[in-house]
């Protein structure tokens, strides 16, 4: 039978999915062993046991200086910045996306600007951002917003423009004003895509958050990674990276589940 017609069973799918992760863990363990044997003080590839110990310590023991439990304060700080950034970006992208996708005049005015802005690498204008937005919470949230909003806006605008013209015409024959159509036809059909767009933006949002926290913060997951990077404390960095990945994965899952529940009429992307 052709290989494309061979479907693994549910059980072997599970096993196959675990294999690459296991392989990576084994390779890491070996590399770590080799380095640690050559130099027991090596910091680059700490053993799993020491990473685990460090992680447990960060997650349970209060910090000597502040009395806070570092992992949770960092997580809370980062998640609240991320949530705020994603929320603001979603709101702006939704409004602009609908305006650009639905109203020809706004499209003519704003589409070129949004297009140009989505091409500016935000990291290159960091100094300007920090000066405009200051260095406190606002600037971190702003970097996330500036980093992800243009792309989300373009995405939403093109989805709005893709709403079948027939529906818009139909709504007009049913007596709808532009505003009524926006509220009752365009907005509800754009929301599922907004969630999908947010899911795509999660990766970049974390990236910008970490970049912002590395420059100016006193807590947050990115701050901690940055702080200990100077000492090459990979026993902190690696568990933190795994933790971030887990958080990102959970947010992704939550958004997907939310969309499936909130928009039962929308065929979700399915699969990958």
């Amino acid at each position, binding site marked *: 039978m052709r290989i494309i017609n061979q479907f693994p069973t549910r059980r072997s799918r599970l096993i196959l999915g675990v294999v690459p992760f296991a392989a990576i863990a084994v390779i890491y363990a070996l590399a770590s062993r080799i380095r640690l044997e050559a130099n027991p003080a090596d910091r680059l590839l700490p053993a799993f046991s020491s990473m685990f110990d460090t992680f447990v310590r960060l997650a349970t023991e209060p910090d000597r200086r502040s009395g806070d439990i570092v992992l949770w304060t960092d997580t809370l700080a980062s998640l609240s910045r991320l949530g705020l950034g994603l929320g603001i970006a979603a709101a702006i992208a939704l409004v602009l996306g609908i305006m650009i996708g639905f109203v020809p005049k706004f499209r003519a005015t704003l589409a070129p600007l949004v297009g140009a802005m989505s091409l500016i690498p935000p990291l290159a204008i960091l100094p300007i951002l920090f000066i405009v937005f200051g260095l406190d919470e606002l600037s971190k949230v702003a970097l996330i917003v500036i980093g992800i909003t243009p792309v989300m806006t373009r995405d939403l605008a093109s989805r709005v423009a893709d709403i*079948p013209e*027939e529906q818009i*015409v*139909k709504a007009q*024959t*049913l*007596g709808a004003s532009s505003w009524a159509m926006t509220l009752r036809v365009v907005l*509800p059909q754009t929301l599922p895509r907004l969630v999908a767009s947010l899911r795509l933006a999660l990766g970049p949002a974390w990236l910008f958050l970490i970049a912002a926290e590395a420059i100016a913060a006193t807590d947050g997951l990115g701050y901690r990674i940055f702080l200990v990077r100077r000492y090459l404390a990979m026993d902190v960095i690696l568990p933190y990276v795994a933790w971030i990945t887990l958080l990102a994965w959970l947010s992704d899952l939550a958004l997907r589940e939310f969309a499936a529940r909130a928009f039962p*009429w929308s065929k979700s992307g399915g699969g990958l």
Partner: protein
Amino acid sequence: MSTVDVQNIALSIGGVPILERVNLSVTSGEFCAIVGASGCGKSTFLRMLLSQQRPSSGAILIDGETVAPEPTPDRGIVFQKYSVFPHLTVAGNLVLPADFASGSPLARLFGARRRNARAAAMAMLEKIGLGPHADKYPAQLSGGQQQRLAIAQALSMKPKILLLDEPFGALDPGIRADMHELLSGLWKETRMTVFMVTHDIGEAFKLGTRVLVFDKIRPDGGKAGPAGATITYDLKLDREQRRARALAGAALVAAAPARTANDA
């Protein structure tokens, strides 16, 4: 309930003539079935009646007045697809026109008025046999059920003119027959003016009081560049005549549709 006068309209898109010299005068309450080869401009003609497209020249008058420059509630439309709103339930789709009419800034009725609108919608749903499906989404309905809903939705505005673009193209013969009855019944009841595009000649003769055949002809008989389509046959049917003419009509137009727009 309205007369429609189409005065010598023509349309070119990007220099290519699509329609030309289309003249038509329809009295109130007629049921015009439109047939013609694929790509000859039938949908385009409906789009112009709906002000979705503006003719390059000529004029369209409704009840003697120039048609509004954009779609308005006096002309209802049922498309072959996308005819209902996928994000609203069946009942929601029928309440929507009332929501739009409410003039509320949220484009939504509340309280007692909402309950009234919903009750009216439910009554309508019972009438078209969708009562049990009121809280389903369109994607959960069969094609025929969706089209019934689309027609009910279009009729809820009591349009003077109803435009139908291949409304039954995707349906089973059985469901199609049901829909024919539904449509005939509603038309007799409301006496609106109907324009229906169809690919099914039988359907055209069965439902229409008048069958319009669109086709491309070259007035000079020569090959002087591409020509747009126009109305080549305009058959006014007596109710009694219809059955008899059906066969003859079918033979008449059988050859025409074989010429597709691609051969132009």
